[in-house]
């Protein structure tokens, strides 16, 4: 679209974030999941992937999907600053997505993690990839984290030993709802990386090609009689 002055004033400053180097993880089933950054042009399949889960109240899917849908549109329409989106794709089919944004070169704000294919720890792998991008690739010092699901969040709290800054609320509050927050510092990430984060780099040309054209899932275990 033509970027006139009005449009420009509504857009965030155009910071160029370092790209996420794609990697491949062989999941327990033997399937290969390519983890790569999504492009704005792929918004259609991203929204289409997330949309059906807005109708699933179980396990907090509805609120996570709805918020992620809004955040993806915010990223696509240049109304959210420095957001990035990573997808996990198996043969091109989206198995999970994570999104996040950089507040400043020192600080990241973790947004959401949405897993479609269950039973293969894809959510855990993509969350770790997100943290890898924040701290190892973008060079931030820390990432603020909250979650909708208490059980999911407790897992992150324990597995990463997240620093509890909830007592500094309201001065320290997460963008998602402005709530008390926990923090993954570089020190904590260094202690967790080897156990939580994996993947083979560089991704082979064949693997990259398989994930070149992203497709929406044909079935959702969360939605028994799903038909697109």
């Amino acid at each position, binding site marked *: 679209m033509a970027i006139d002055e009005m449009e420009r004033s509504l857009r965030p400053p155009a910071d160029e974030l370092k790209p996420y180097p794609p990697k491949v993880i062989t999941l327990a089933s033997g399937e290969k999941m390519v983890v790569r950054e999504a492009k704005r042009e792929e918004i259609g399949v991203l929204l289409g992937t997330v949309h059906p889960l807005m109708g699933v109240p179980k396990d907090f899917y509805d609120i996570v999907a709805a918020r992620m849908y809004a955040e993806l549109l915010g990223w696509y329409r240049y109304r959210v600053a420095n957001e990035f989106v990573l997808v996990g794709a198996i043969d091109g089919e989206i198995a999970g997505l994570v999104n996040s944004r950089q507040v400043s070169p020192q600080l990241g704000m973790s947004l959401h993690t949405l897993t479609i294919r269950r039973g293969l720890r894809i959510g855990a792998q993509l969350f770790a990839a997100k943290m890898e991008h924040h701290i190892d690739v973008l060079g931030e010092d820390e990432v603020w984290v909250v979650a909708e699901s208490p059980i999911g969040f407790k897992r992150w709290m*324990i597995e990463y*030993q997240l620093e509890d800054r909830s007592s500094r609320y309201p001065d320290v509050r997460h963008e998602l709802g402005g709530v008390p927050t926990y923090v993954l510092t570089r020190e904590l990430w260094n202690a967790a990386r080897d156990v939580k984060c994996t993947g083979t780099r560089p991704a082979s040309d064949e693997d990259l090609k398989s994930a070149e054209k992203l497709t929406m899932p044909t079935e959702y275990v969360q939605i028994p009689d799903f038909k697109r």
Partner: protein
Amino acid sequence: MIDFSMYDVKAPQIDAWKCDSCGTIFYPVPMVCSGCGVRRDPVTNKGWSTFELSGPCTLLTWTRVWNLPEGYNKKFLQFGIVEFENGLRASGRVEVDEPRTGMALTATVEESDERPGDPVNVFVFK
């Protein structure tokens, strides 16, 4: 006459038991002595005595548990089974950086309140 020492703050301690009739030692204490068959009265404990279980021990086996139960917020905890010089064995936490079977450790006791209910005494092998 009141024994006011009962209010003293005692360092946590874990006890083993001895059957005074035949000298067999136990951890934990049974109701019937496997050595001489004598029964223990849990109210008076007459004929049985306790002694502190602590000090040097050998690590028989160990593990690092990553999925801890409700109440524990650490990433992982290390546990092991040790054998004392008197032949008694015990389970407890292991606090060394690189545990190895057969290594010599010292048994200490700490109080823990991670589990529901009153605080309990826990072996920490260092």
